[in-house]
């Protein structure tokens, strides 16, 4: 088998060499599934100019691993990179936020037209402390609705995911108990209860919420929008109930200022109209590319994303980047060569 392995590897090398001898550029990237739809749309447009880009969503962490192993030309991650991970890439990395989105709390409550979730209630739900929909705290915030006498079934992500990171990051920022308990991460230790079930990926969670009366869970905004799920109005730092959407998201992004390494988490945005659970998502590049043609193609890709690409964002359920942020990103992109 080992002889066969080497033979195959040798064949691969041969093909790889012939591939690089061509003039056409081909880039490969992998990582987060959150921005995959919009990235794929960008790459399709870019391919019309002769640059072929392949992207496979397999999770933020997997993308970072690929970058560290040098098996891809770029990666994408919802949770940027940790210092540890950055240290592992010889030659350094450049992290560039390319788009942003929101995480929504979706539910299945037939008959409830609008659900308000106060700031002190929804972390409790995800801690397993509030267990029924007609809990006095929930009823108090939803005077116009009749809350049913249903147990709350919490649907969380089964797979490790950047979306979980964003959601738990926010919950940890606004609730000490959650921070000490499950905490934040791509996977966290959810409470052990029969009412906590897990489904893989956004579509799994969506399907489970749809099928289970009294279910509540967290999914990406784009998903909720196109699958026409009911989403909750979440109470932000200023005390207002805000629905997810372009307005709420834009307000959340407006107040953020990026540090030089371009890593910023919007754990708890200020602003009256801000939707509290929003996040940027990053593309990760090597600081230096051996092939100047590749570096040029990468820069082309970034330019497209920052320019034309932003116009596609809203339609697809993502948030367009505020202009000052885009300018910052362009500046940081200059360090790639």
């Amino acid at each position, binding site marked *: 088998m080992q002889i066969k392995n080497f033979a195959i590897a040798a064949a691969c090398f041969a093909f790889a060499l012939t591939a690089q001898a061509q003039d056409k550029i081909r880039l490969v990237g992998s990582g987060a599934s959150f921005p995959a739809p919009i990235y794929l749309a960008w790459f399709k447009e870019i391919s019309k100019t002769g640059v072929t880009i392949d992207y496979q969503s397999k999770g933020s962490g997997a993308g970072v691993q690929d970058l560290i192993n040098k098996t891809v030309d770029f990666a994408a991650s919802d949770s940027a990179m940790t210092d540890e991970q950055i240290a592992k890439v010889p030659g350094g990395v450049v992290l560039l936020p390319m788009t942003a989105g929101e995480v929504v709390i979706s539910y299945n409550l037939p008959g409830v037209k609008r659900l308000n979730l106060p700031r002190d209630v929804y972390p409790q739900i995800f801690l397993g402390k509030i267990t029924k929909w007609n809990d006095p705290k929930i009823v108090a915030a939803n005077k116009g609705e009749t809350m049913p006498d249903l147990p709350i079934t919490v649907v969380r992500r089964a*797979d490790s995911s950047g979306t979980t990171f964003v959601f738990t990051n926010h919950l940890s920022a606004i609730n000490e108990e959650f921070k000490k308990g499950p905490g934040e991460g791509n996977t*966290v230790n959810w409470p052990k209860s*029969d009412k*906590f*079930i897990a*489904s893989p990926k956004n579509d799994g969670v969506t399907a489970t919420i749809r099928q289970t009366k009294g279910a509540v869970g967290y999914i990406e905004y784009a998903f909720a929008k196109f699958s026409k799920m009911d989403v909750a109005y979440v109470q932000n730092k200023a005390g207002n109930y805000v629905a997810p959407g372009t307005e709420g998201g834009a307000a959340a992004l407006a107040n953020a200022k990026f540090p030089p390494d371009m890593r910023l988490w919007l754990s708890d945005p200020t602003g009256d109209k801000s939707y509290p659970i929003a996040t940027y998502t990053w593309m990760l590049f090597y600081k230096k590319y051996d092939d100047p043609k590749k570096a040029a193609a990468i820069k082309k890709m970034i330019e497209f994303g920052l320019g034309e690409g932003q116009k596609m964002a809203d339609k697809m359920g993502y948030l367009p980047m505020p202009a000052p942020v885009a300018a910052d990103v362009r500046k940081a992109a200059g360090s790639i060569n």
Partner: protein
Amino acid sequence: MSSAPAAELQGGSVSGPPSPFDYFFDRAFRGLAYAGAASILLLLALILYEIGGKALPGIREHGVALLVSSNWDVKAGEFGILPAIWGTLYSSLLALIIGGAFGVAMAIFLTQDFLPPRLAQVFRTIVELLAAIPSVVYGLWGIFVVIPVIRPVADWLHDKLAVIPFFSTSLAGPGMLPAAMVLAIMVLPTVAAVSQDALRLVPYKVKEAAYGLGTTRWEAILKVLLPAARNGIFGALVLGFGRALGETMALAMLVGNSNQVTLSLFAPANTLAALLALNFPEAGPKEIPVLMYAALVLLAITLLVNIAGSAIMVLAGRQGGAR
């Protein structure tokens, strides 16, 4: 044999000693066969080396504690795969019992003249096709068809018979039973196809002899045919069980991925393969050794189950007397 046609033409005998080329070819081919067998051993060794190598840090750090703990806390660095081991065995066993029973029944149904031969052939092909359906599709079918169908039954069972530990929790969606059922459907085509071959290979004379002694149809099947095909059917069950143990995607979507050890059929659970699939892509340097350790455990389980199965076969063979 290359000399045989010439000999025939001359009116000589068909048989004759092999020619030098035949000897050489024989050696070469046998060498290839040895190489083939050796490559499997090499493959397993390579796999164990790769996975074991990555697992060593995990084994050193967690040791046996990993196998008995139910805690999976990435931040705190505490891991436990007991629920996953339990879930793997529970789901695979259920799937083997259901899928195996129905698979063998299907094999008997399709080979023992219960249907006209043409129709039986059509069904045989359809059943084999089902092995081709991607796991993802089975997962989706499980989510959209199986779970809604089981829900009313599960709720009724839970209401009336919650005392029985198997029904002690309510079905919230993904859980052990939907996972086991879909797994059984995935195992069935393999078991059915290989069992059919085993049954068809039993010489017809054996069945004729049984009928000649005056057995009923089913006495012939149960007491003569099945024992004769025993090895093949057992092989089918081994393949089916292996498939169940290693099934990743469909179970990841259906088993609920919750780290608890429970007998309840309706509670969410976890399996080793699903644990790997869901955590590996995003695993950091602390998690990977643990996941590789879990992979080794899975391989060990497969090995142990096979040993146990072979032991059972040997015992059954001794009890059954001469074949």
